[in-house]
């Protein structure tokens, strides 16, 4: 990645001996995410991927340990005040509000928008390929377009950390690639720290610079994406990814957009 285009830097995210338990499965994370890089978080179902993002976003509170964003302990900071934006797999939009309003909520939670806000919203919609669809309702959009609206809102919110919780899992392969490229493009412009939960090795390899592999509620392995997909990852990761990954990777390497 060329650093020349980056005018705003992401901040590092760290989970310092965080423990958490929801029901029975205990969770213990001790991991750091490099600033301004895209880290793919992978692991089997129930390994704690979404919980990790929820802890960073502030939807869950650790039982012990600290969550540090940009070096600051955010324990007392409510979700909206954290320097974080998050895109969920679904329900990212309010069904009764227009595209424009849904994006506008990223600027003002009461939708009181200044002219500067309006300009930023229009620009974000243009950038995410939604120009001309400002007045539409979410139900008049395709699944991919809805996630574009969510990404446009991320742009106007302009926070240094972006959390992606399998946002493209329900899209078809081609559409998913387009969306990944869009995320990679936004990352190139804004340089935010991206934590990207995905089940798809291809996705992780397509835009991920690092990989954090979770297993059974702990961090099982950390490394660069290139190492992981070159077969240097841990045994558990290779078993999780299976045979298909190797093929997918070799096909995708040439198209990696960064």
């Amino acid at each position, binding site marked *: 990645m060329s650093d020349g285009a980056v005018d705003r830097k992401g901040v590092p995210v760290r989970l310092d001996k965080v423990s958490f338990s*929801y029901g029975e499965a205990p969770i213990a994370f001790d991991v750091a995410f490099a600033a301004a890089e895209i880290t793919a978080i992978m692991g089997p179902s129930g390994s704690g991927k979404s919980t990790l993002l929820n802890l960073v976003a502030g939807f869950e509170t650790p039982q012990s340990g600290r969550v540090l964003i940009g070096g600051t302990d955010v324990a007392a900071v409510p979700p909206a005040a954290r320097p974080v934006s998050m895109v969920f797999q679904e329900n990212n939009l309010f069904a009764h509000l227009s595209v424009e309003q849904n994006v506008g909520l990223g600027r003002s939670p*009461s939708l009181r928008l200044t002219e500067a806000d309006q300009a930023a919203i229009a620009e974000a919609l243009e950038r995410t390929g939604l120009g001309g669809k400002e007045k539409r309702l979410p*139900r008049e959009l395709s699944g991919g377009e809805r996630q574009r609206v969510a990404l446009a809102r991320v742009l106007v919110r302009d926070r240094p950390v972006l959390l992606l919780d399998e946002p493209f899992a329900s899209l078809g392969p081609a559409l998913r690639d387009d969306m990944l490229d869009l995320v990679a493009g936004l990352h190139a412009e804004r340089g935010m720290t991206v934590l990207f939960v995905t089940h798809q090795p291809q996705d992780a390899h397509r835009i991920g610079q690092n990989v954090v592999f979770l297993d059974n509620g702990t961090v099982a392995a950390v490394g660069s994406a290139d190492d992981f997909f070159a077969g240097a990852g841990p045994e558990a990761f290779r078993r999780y990814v299976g045979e298909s990954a190797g093929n997918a990777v070799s096909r995708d390497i040439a198209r990696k957009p960064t």
Partner: protein
Amino acid sequence: MQRADPRISAGIIALAAITLLIGGAFAGLLVEGAHDLSGAWAAFDPYLLRVVRFTLWQAILSTLLSVIPALFVARALSRHPRFFGRAFILQLFAVPLALPAIVAALGILALYGRAGYFAGVFSAIGGQGWPGIYGLSGILVAHVFFNLPLATRLFLEALRTIPADQWRLANQLGMGALSAFRLIEWPTLRAALPGVAGLVFMLCITSFTIVLTLGGGPAATTLEVGIYQALRFDFDPARAVALTMLQIALTFVVVLVLTRLGANVVGDTNLPVAPRRYLSVNGTETTLNAVLIVLALLFVVGPMAATVMAGLGADLGRLAGEATVRQATLTSAVLAFLSALLAVMLSLALTMARRALALNRRAGPKTLLEHTTDTGASFVLVVPPIVIGAGWFLLLRHAGDVFAIAPVMVVTVNAVMAMPFALRAVRPAYDAASERHERLCAQLGISGWARLRLVDWPSLRRPLATAFAFAMALSLGDLGVIALFGSDSVQTLPYLLLARMGSYRTEDAAGLALLLGLVCLALVLAADWLGREKVRNV
């Protein structure tokens, strides 16, 4: 994360208001009882025992007469999942739920009363003058009119839960109607029976208007009517306290038994939809079922038709011009509107608080507050409106003019009584919306007023309107509280109707009943329609 959520504060305020209303009533009763302890004891005389016995007796008979036929009508309807007019019959069976009791009572009198449409027929059969159906028979007919359709719909819903595969299997094994009933239908019905019978029993034991209008004398008086008479006619507060205490004890025991049986004390207004069935019904059974359904239909439609016919026979033009009628209509409309508004606000506050508490709690055990906002709310139904009214009546009679607070009592008591029904409309919608929006709102910092305006209001508009219309219909038709507090200066339509009946101006009463019935029906239909239209989700 654990800062005070305004939603929880709203719930606490709502609970405090409800507690004040019910607590005040109990305080009134206790103060009065302590004031005249010997008088209260002396009130436990043979007459009182007779009243208790009659209360139980009419409720048992009403329950049996409603529930047993309902079993077979429901079965007949379930054996024929598709025929012309089936949906319409089920719609008609929902109408009694919407009709104010006093309107139904009038319809029954117009049909079977001494001067009713059937009086000539009955006189010819009996060989002597038809005395009309006052007393126990009148009460029973009215209770069955209300509860047979209700029980039928509930049983039908139970039968609908039988998996289609069981029917396919029964068909393949060549089960006849009797074996299918014994092996498939009866086990399901038996499971639903205690709940349905319990609900009907509860409704009959707390029935006020029917007994007041059709009871026709001291021989057929229940506890609730006794409370009313003690306060309004004999002015015997000690007796009122004794009767109220008995009524509370009785409903408490009934509800305790009901909850043990797993009964749903709130009832339901949903229409069962016919599923695909694999049935073979032979000719004899079809005829039998048809006869059953037609009989039940005639029984339910009769009083409704009589209400309409008698109402159209009234001098509606003159009634509409009468100042008293206009005033009562206006009073009813305003009070019912305020009552519905209050009911909706209470239920919304409780819903939001319950959800917020559940979200804060995560996996831990429920707190007492959450329990109270959850199931606790529907237990207000245990306290009959007459009891709350009587308590406040006794408390306030020392403080000045009791009748001056009539509007406040009517609005608040009816609002609290309608609240459990409103909750059922509002809560699922709010919880579903919250499920979708909660994290997004937290992430974007949308809270308080902005959240209500931008997020909650759009998804709650329709369910709130449903709850409002239903609460307004309930409040509009209520005769319980206004019977105690009504006076010449504050009259609602049901109160005026009762007064006209009392002074034998039957035609006027019929006209008013038609008006009241139509308005309530329109409101409930609106509530149903608003509730059915689904909000599209992303």
